[in-house]
């Protein structure tokens, strides 16, 4: 298997789907000549032409809305919104239009739309470029929400998202673009709605998303040296959520820590914790623990930025506390 970056894996997914299906196209700010501000669409305009890799004006509502209108009438757009922070401008189109037309039409209209965007901290771009808002999208029936953490998942999930007949919010983490991992040569799909066990273990389950999967993995390695054996579950898709895999793991380890970068209050972690409580309450030896972004906007200064989201050490400390407290 070839080793590829997350960025290249995403590009491959789009390229393959564009070759496979003439209805698939890309639109967004600076996706063309510039190749996307994070380089994800680099080269695609040269290969497919301006007609299928469309630079747009800075009009997030129109990007999401026009992509929705195109999807309703036979195309399969991949729309890019540079930062999830700017999906705030596109929420009417995404939530009142894209997410609802299938339902409002009594099932007669389909909206096969992928809205790609980037999330998270790490680039010291402060409060308006670093948020994590997946809980908003996940709160909306009619949307699917995907957050890949590895190149393999990124490619396989993006291909599935493009083929899905529903609007999918596809959230990439800016600090993962350069991460490398194995990506098979031939075609493969990763189904939406299936969690992946990134590490098997017996003492404690960690559910982590996006960048936090890597941090949790690092914490798990460190803890292994201390004799604590972590099982790490990556839901990959936030909606639909594969709660079954999570509960199965909890039934094995009896302890659960949820790690995400978004603020805790009304975040996805609360949903996961609650569902586990609903479905596996008596399997829990201790309350579920959340390790999440702190309740503040993302500050600019590097040490502050690093402070407000979970670190490897913070995750490890939470595990130690839970595992020892539970013994």
């Amino acid at each position: 298997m070839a080793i590829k970056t997350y960025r290249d894996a995403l590009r491959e997914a789009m390229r393959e789907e564009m070759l496979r299906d003439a209805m698939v196209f890309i639109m967004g700010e600076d996706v063309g000549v510039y190749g996307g501000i994070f380089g994800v669409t680099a080269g695609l305009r040269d290969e497919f032409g301006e007609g299928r890799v469309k630079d747009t004006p800075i009009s997030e509502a129109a990007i999401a809305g026009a992509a929705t209108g195109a999807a309703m009438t036979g195309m399969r757009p991949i729309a890019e919104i540079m930062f999830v922070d700017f999906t705030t401008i596109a929420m009417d189109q995404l939530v009142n239009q894209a997410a609802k037309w299938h339902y409002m039409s009594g099932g007669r209209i389909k909206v096969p739309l992928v809205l790609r965007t980037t999330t998270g901290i790490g680039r010291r771009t402060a409060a308006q470029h670093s948020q994590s808002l997946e809980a908003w999208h996940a709160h909306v029936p009619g949307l699917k929400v995907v957050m890949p953490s590895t190149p393999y998942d990124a490619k396989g999930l993006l291909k599935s998202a493009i083929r899905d007949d529903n609007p999918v919010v596809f959230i990439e983490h800016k600090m993962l673009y350069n991460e490398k991992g194995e990506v098979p040569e031939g075609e493969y799909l990763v189904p939406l709605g299936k969690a992946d066990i990134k590490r098997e273990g017996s003492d404690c389950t960690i559910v982590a998303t996006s960048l936090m999967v890597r941090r949790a993995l690092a914490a798990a390695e460190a803890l292994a040296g201390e004799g604590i054996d972590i099982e790490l579950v990556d839901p990959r898709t936030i909606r639909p959520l594969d709660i079954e895999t999570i509960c199965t793991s909890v039934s094995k380890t009896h302890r659960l820590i949820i790690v995400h970068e978004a603020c805790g209050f009304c975040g996805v972690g609360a949903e996961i914790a609650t569902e586990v409580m609903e479905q596996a309450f008596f399997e829990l030896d201790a309350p579920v623990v959340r390790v999440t972004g702190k309740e503040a906007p993302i500050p600019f200064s590097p040490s502050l930025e690093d402070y407000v989201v979970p670190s490897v050490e913070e995750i490890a400390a939470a595990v130690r506390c839970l595992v020892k407290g539970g013994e």
Partner: protein
Amino acid sequence: MEALTMEKRLKMYRLMLTIRAFEEKIVEVYAQGLMPGLAHLYVGEEAVAVGVCTALEPADLITSTHRGHGHCIAKGGDVKLMMAEMFGKDTGYCRGKGGSMHISDIELGIVGANGVVGGGIPLATGAALSAQMRNSGQVVVCFFGDGASNNGSFHESLNLAALWRLPVVYVCENNGYGISVAQSRHQAIKDVAVRAAAYGMPGVTVDGNDVEAVHAAARVAVDRARQGEGPTLLECKTYRFRGHHEGDPNRGNRYRSRQEIVAWEEKCPLKGYEAKLLAGGVTWEQLEELKEKVQQAIEAAVQYANASPFPPLTAALADVYAG
């Protein structure tokens, strides 16, 4: 442009009549409590939808608004399915899940009414992009009100459409009000069509109560769009005879004067057109016959709607996701 055939003129008349009769029936059934939710009626504005939609081919597309019954009928919508939908019935266009503000018939090119003011403008733009990319030869018409022209979605969409020369006609139904707010109190311009210049597209203002004037202007714009010359902003000045929605007392008399209402009623698009048709050789009997047929269709629609079942509760959780 060739002159209109009498057949076409009668078709336009029939469609306006159907809209009027449909809406007047809604007044009735709404008062009876048969139609839940909101009813934003199109009475007085019929010439816009009809003038525009009769300039379209069957495969062409429209997007519509909260005040969408007229657009739907003009594009060929089935009044039975519309009425059933408004009654919340399982046989309605959206299986009772959409209601008045969300009727769509994608096969007929009715991409959908919209409860969000301005919400349909990006959708129309995207549908036009789709037509352009699929090389389908379709033209898209996007209906919206004067009030909607102040929403950001209008601006972003028209800019994109002009830039990409999309086959779309933006039809502003300027009825002088966004709910209670008169145009002079929501924008410092008189003609919405002047906004076209801000995007580099032609802007045209016509008498929206003159169905043939609307039709003529629409044909120019539709032809332009179909020939790849890009979008047009077509403003039709008109007036709603009733309140913002059924329940807005005294037909909106709180924010507009009786005189104003009466003066516009004089300009009723139907009355005016009847006179023209009669002068053009149509007989009174022909018109009466048409009226009767239309009325029968509307009564049949109400019967159909009444006789139809409500959706089963399971429908509430179906169609959230496709596939």
